[in-house]
């Protein structure tokens, strides 16, 4: 299991575009479960509407947990995603 903590930097937060890209990325690792937690709410990174309904904004701290067959590769990809898009 890999756990990543990240403080959102993007002024626009997790809106449709980055949320869609995150879902696409997460679906690329079918044997690996990726979850996103903000506060007490945790959703799977493959669930677009759930991700968007978390209203993730700049300054929010989120935790991404990656678990499964390809967790190292997936965690690396998530790390890149967070730095490039969020």
């Amino acid at each position, binding site marked *: 299991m890999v756990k990543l903590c990240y403080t959102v930097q993007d002024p*626009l*937060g997790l809106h*449709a575009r980055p949320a869609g890209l995150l879902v696409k990325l997460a679906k690329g690792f079918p044997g690996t479960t990726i979850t996103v937690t903000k506060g007490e709410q945790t959703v799977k990174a493959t669930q*677009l*509407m759930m991700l968007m309904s978390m209203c993730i904004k700049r300054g929010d701290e989120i935790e991404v947990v990656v678990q499964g067959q390809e967790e190292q590769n997936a965690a690396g990809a998530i790390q890149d995603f967070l730095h490039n898009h969020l």
Partner: protein
Amino acid sequence: MSILNLFRKEKCSYKLLAVASGKVCPIESVQDEVFSAKILGDGLALEPDNSQSVLAPASGVVTVADHSMPHAVGMRLSTGMEILIHIGIDTVEMDGHGFRLLAEKGEKVKVGQPLIAFDLDAIRSSGHPGTIILVVTEPGQHKPLFLSGLNAVAGQTVIAEYQ
């Protein structure tokens, strides 16, 4: 009513109605890859004429409605299908100006009920296309058939059908 119409009715029991009036176009034509490449899901684009609001295309529950991002709204339809309606391209940059949410997250809405009021002139004058995009983010058990090329009337014209 012809036999063909009866048959159609039986075959496609569910419909999505136009969320605004205007020309319905294939989603592939949208000038934003996250939509045109169907990263969020399959759907349709609509070039609004003088519409001032988007309407619920079917009955359901509002799942995404964030007052800091009032240019988009999500719904779970009563058939289990999940949809996202997004007004304009890159309109997240407008910081909510020109948009007003008319429904709250968790609210049950009926087909044709207004979800977002928007100012098309404000969108265009800030340099953004006003294209409205409807995406089926979770089709569930359904396989919707999208009907593009129509000149749709808000709340009346069928823009997608599914069983």
